[in-house]
């Protein structure tokens, strides 16, 4: 009796078993499902994540100036203390312009902490007081000028209820919404600060009052 040894494919391994195809198909469907869920318009989710709006002025103002800024950015400070102040006095006061602040906290941890402090001030209706204080007290970037104790002192300075502020400030509850506001700014094409949107038209940089007035000219009600 002669025994031969030859390679054959056993029946089990003759091909790729149908189970592989079924699992593959299910995997493709689940994968597409995940992509669809993440890619869906996330309007509801955005609203849930974003903090209370920070608006200065008449809600029905015909012109909206959305300002993306980082509290540590020197140009934002110059913009806030200069042009924004003049806009406030001239156009916000008479109800023509409303200013909406958006966080673009990208310089570092102290930017985020300052933004969190401003959100906690916003809880007590004093966002713009904190905004002014922060931009008035800018120093170097991430060198302790917006360390936690300094930020708490600013909060005290503008007369916040310190117990409520401390609870809010140590909770970190606005961190995600600040980061998501920053990310959404990037989605809208913001890459430097300050960047403003005048009725959705992008304006980059700390523009002068004259540039601002030229830009809003066509938007003013006749």
């Amino acid at each position, binding site marked *: *009796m002669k*025994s*031969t*040894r*030859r*390679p*054959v*494919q*056993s029946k*089990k*391994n*003759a*091909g*790729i*078993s149908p*189970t*592989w195809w079924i*699992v*593959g198909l*299910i*995997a*493709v469907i*689940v*994968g*597409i499902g*995940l*992509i669809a*869920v*993440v*890619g869906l318009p*996330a309007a509801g*989710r*955005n609203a849930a*994540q974003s903090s209370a709006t920070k608006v200065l002025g008449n809600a029905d103002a015909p012109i909206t100036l959305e300002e993306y800024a980082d509290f540590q950015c020197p140009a934002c400070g110059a913009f806030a203390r200069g042009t924004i102040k003049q806009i406030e006095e001239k156009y916000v006061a008479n109800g023509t312009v409303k200013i909406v602040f958006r966080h673009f906290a*990208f310089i570092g*941890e102290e930017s*985020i902490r300052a933004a969190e402090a401003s959100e906690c001030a916003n809880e007590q209706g004093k966002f713009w007081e904190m905004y002014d204080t922060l931009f008035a007290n800018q120093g170097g970037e991430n060198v302790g000028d917006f360390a936690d104790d300094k930020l708490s002192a600013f909060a005290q300075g503008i007369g916040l209820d310190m117990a409520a502020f401390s609870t809010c400030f140590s909770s*970190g509850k606005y*961190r*995600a919404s600040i*980061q*998501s506001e*920053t*990310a*959404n700014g*990037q*989605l809208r094409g913001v890459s430097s600060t300050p960047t403003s949107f005048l009725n959705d038209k992008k304006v980059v940089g700390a523009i002068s009052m004259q540039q601002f007035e030229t830009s809003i000219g066509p938007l003013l009600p006749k």
Partner: protein
Amino acid sequence: MNKRRLAITVLAVLGILASGYLTYSHFSGEPVYCGGTNSCELVNSSRFAYIGPVPVAVLGLIAYVVILILSLIKSDEERQWPAILTFGVALIGVMFQWYLFYIEVAKLRAICYWCVSSQIIITLIFILALPRRTPVEEETE
């Protein structure tokens, strides 16, 4: 343990480290270390980083843990399900991860190194987990 399975085990551990770090960063509020840029933070906190309230980093972590466990179970002709399931999980992972890479490049214009590491790891696992014919020698008369 054959070499292929061992490689998947090692890659799954690396994947757990990358996605675990992103998950940790998400829940602790610590900013993601990103070599001096804020791209990782941007990607990881963008609206694409969540499915409802669940961060995608957590999904990645779960997927790698499942792959790790499956890779520790021996597969052979008699018992194919660990290999088949690894293939299924890796296929979902690879599709989803490359979609997220597209989002990073096309929508956010920010690259998150941790996420890209994870994208490479899952791609390697997927290649290793692909089904293949295994001709065997049998004794016949």
